[in-house]
C-alpha cells in the first residue's frame, strides 16, 4: 500500500482584484472582486514507503501548494490526500506526529537558546523514547557534524550550521514521511553534500519516505530515485530519474580544442540538430541530437574548418533538460 495517495487534487486561490487609487480601494471594500487562480490542477500520484522523490518545477508551478496540502496546512479545493491512512487537513495533529518538515528558512529551533535545548523540547513534544533519542542524537551528530554546534545559541550559527541542526531536528522523532521544501537554498557545496548524504543514509536505515523540492538539481541527481515534474499546476512527468533523462536527454555536448581555424563555421553548412554554443579561436562547443547524428559526423564536418587537437563529450544534465522543458521545447516529445 502506498504511504502517500494523492487523487485528483485541485487547489484554487481566490485573489482579490483591486483597482488603482483610493477610489478603487474603497470600491473594493464594498464590492470585493475576486479572481480565481488555479495553483494545482487535478494531480494524482502514489508514493511508496521508502521512496526518495524529487518534486520539481519552476517558481509558481504549484510545488509549495502541493506540499502544504500534503502536510495539511492547506485545505484542498477538491480531491483527496491520504498520508499513511490519515487525511492530513482533517486530522492535522495526528498527522503531524508521523511527519517532519523543513520549509525553506523557517526554523523550529529556539533562537536564543542552545541547539540542544530545542532538541530536548522536540523529544518531549513528540514523546520520543529515551533510547531512540540517544541513538538518533549520536548518529545525527556524527553524520551532520554537530558536535561543536549543540551547545551554541541558534542565533550565533551560520546559515549552513543552522540548516544542519534543522534537518537533525526534523528527523529526530523517526518520522515516516519527511517533506523538505528547498532545504539547500543558499548553502555552500560542502553543507549541501553533507545534507544529501544524511538524507540518503537515514532513508536507507529507517526507510523514511522523503519528498524533496529544490531548484538545485544536483540535489535531485544525487538523492532522488524518482522525479515528479509539475508545470503550471499539472504533472508533466512522473517516473524514474534515469528514464526521465533517457527520454528527454537527447542531446550531447561536445567540446573541441582546435587550432589553425581557417574560417568561422557557417550555419548553412550544418544540419538543424547541430547547435554551436560557444566558438572562439582555440575551442568550439557543440550541442547535437545523438539520435540523428553521431560524434563521427560532427568530427567530419568540423575538420573541414580546422585541426582538432582534443575533445570532451558530456551528456546533457538534468538542468539542461529542464531548461528546455521550461522553455517549451520538449513538451509532448
Amino acid at each position, binding site marked *: 500500500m502506498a504511504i502517500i495517495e494523492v487523487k485528483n487534487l485541485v487547489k484554487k486561490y481566490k485573489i482579490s482584484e483591486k483597482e488603482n487609487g483610493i477610489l478603487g480601494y474603497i470600491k473594493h471594500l464594498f464590492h470585493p472582486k475576486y479572481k480565481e487562480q488555479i*495553483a494545482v490542477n487535478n494531480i494524482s500520484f502514489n508514493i511508496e514507503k521508502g521512496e526518495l522523490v524529487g518534486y520539481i518545477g519552476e517558481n509558481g508551478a*504549484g510545488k509549495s*501548494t502541493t506540499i502544504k496540502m500534503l502536510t495539511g*496546512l492547506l485545505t484542498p479545493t477538491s480531491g483527496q490526500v491520504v498520508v499513511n491512512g490519515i487525511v492530513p487537513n482533517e486530522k492535522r*495533529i495526528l498527522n503531524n506526529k508521523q511527519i517532519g518538515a523543513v520549509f525553506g528558512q*523557517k526554523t523550529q529551533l529556539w533562537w536564543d537558546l542552545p541547539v540542544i535545548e530545542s532538541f530536548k523540547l522536540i523529544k518531549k513534544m513528540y514523546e520520543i523514547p529515551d533510547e531512540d533519542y540517544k541513538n538518533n542524537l549520536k548518529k545525527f551528530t556524527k553524520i551532520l557534524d554537530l558536535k561543536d554546534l549543540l551547545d551554541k545559541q541558534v542565533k550565533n550559527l551560520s546559515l549552513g550550521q543552522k540548516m544542519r541542526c534543522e534537518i537533525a531536528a526534523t528527523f529526530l522523532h523517526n518520522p515516516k514521511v519527511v517533506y523538505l521544501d528547498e532545504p539547500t537554498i543558499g548553502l555552500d557545496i560542502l553543507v549541501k553534500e553533507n545534507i544529501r548524504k544524511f538524507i540518503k543514509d537515514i532513508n536507507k536505515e529507517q526507510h523514511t519516505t522523503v519528498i524533496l523540492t529544490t531548484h538545485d538539481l544536483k540535489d535531485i541527481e544525487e538523492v532522488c530515485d524518482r522525479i515528479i515534474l509539475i508545470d503550471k499546476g499539472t504533472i508533466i512527468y512522473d517516473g524514474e530519474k534515469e528514464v526521465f533523462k533517457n527520454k528527454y536527454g537527447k542531446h550531447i555536448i561536445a567540446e573541441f580544442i582546435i587550432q589553425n581555424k581557417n574560417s568561422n563555421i557557417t550555419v548553412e553548412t550544418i544540419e538543424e540538430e547541430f547547435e554551436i554554443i560557444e566558438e572562439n579561436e582555440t575551442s568550439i562547443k557543440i550541442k547535437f541530437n545523438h539520435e540523428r547524428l553521431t560524434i563521427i559526423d560532427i568530427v567530419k564536418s568540423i575538420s573541414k574548418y580546422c585541426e582538432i587537437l582534443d575533445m570532451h563529450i558530456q551528456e546533457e544534465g538534468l538542468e539542461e533538460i529542464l531548461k528546455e522543458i521550461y522553455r517549451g521545447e520538449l513538451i509532448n516529445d
Partner: protein
Amino acid sequence: MINKILAIAKQNAKEGLYYRFDLLLYIFNFIIEITVYVFIWLAIYNKGNQILGMTFEQVTTYYILVVSLNPIISWGINETMGNAIREGEILRELLNPISYFNYYFGIRIGELIESIIVGIITFIICALLFGVLLPSSLLNFIFFIIVISLSVVVVYFFELIIGTSAFYTNSIWGVEVFKRAILSIFSGMIAPISLFPEFLQKIANTLPFKDCIYTPISIYFGELNNIEIIQVILKQFIWILILYIIAKILFNKAVKSVTVNGG
C-alpha cells in the same frame, strides 16, 4: 499533555530570562510608575484623611499591587502570536504535534514565570520603600492567588482572540492598544472601580477583567466574604468557557479561510 505544556513553558521562560536586562528595566519602570501614583495620591490626601472610604495606606497598597500584577495580567501572547501569523511562522507552529492552543498556553505560562518574577521583585522593593498593608488573612491570600490564576486563563483566551485578528489586519498594533485600554479601564488598573460612575461600574461588573486586578485586591483587603468570592470564581469559569468557545471558533475559521500564499 500537561508535561508537554510545561516543557514549552520552561523553554519559553528560559528564552525570556536570557534577556535579564530587559526584565530589570521593567522593574525599574514599574517602581517609577508606583512612585508617581503615590505622590499624586499623597497630594490629594493632604486635604483630608479619607477619600471614598480609603485611607492613604490602602491607596498606596492598591497601586503597588496593581503595578505588580500588571505584567502578570497584561503581557501575554497576542504580540508573539500576531507576529508569527504575519511572518508566516504560524505554518511551523501548526506542524507541531500538539494543538495550537496548548502550544501557546505553554508559551503563556512561560511568560507568566517571567512576569511573576518581575511582579514579586517590584512588590518587595516598593513595599520596603512606601510600606504596604498585608493580606487580611491567610485564606484571603489563598483566594487572591486562585482568582489571579484563573484570570490568567481568562486573559489567555482573550489574547488568543486579539492575536487571531492578525489574520485579517496587517498589524495588530491597533487591536492591541484596544486590548490594553479595555484591560486597564475595566480591571481597575487606572483607578479603583469604586470611584467609577455607576454605568461604568455596571459594565465593569459584567466583564471578566475586573476580576483580574480589582477583585483580587479587594479579596486581599478582606472586603469580600467567602460566598462572594465563590461567586467570583464561578463567574470566572463561565467567562473562561465563553472566551474559549469564541477563540476556538474565530481561530478555526481564520485558519480555514486564510489561504497561505506561495508557489
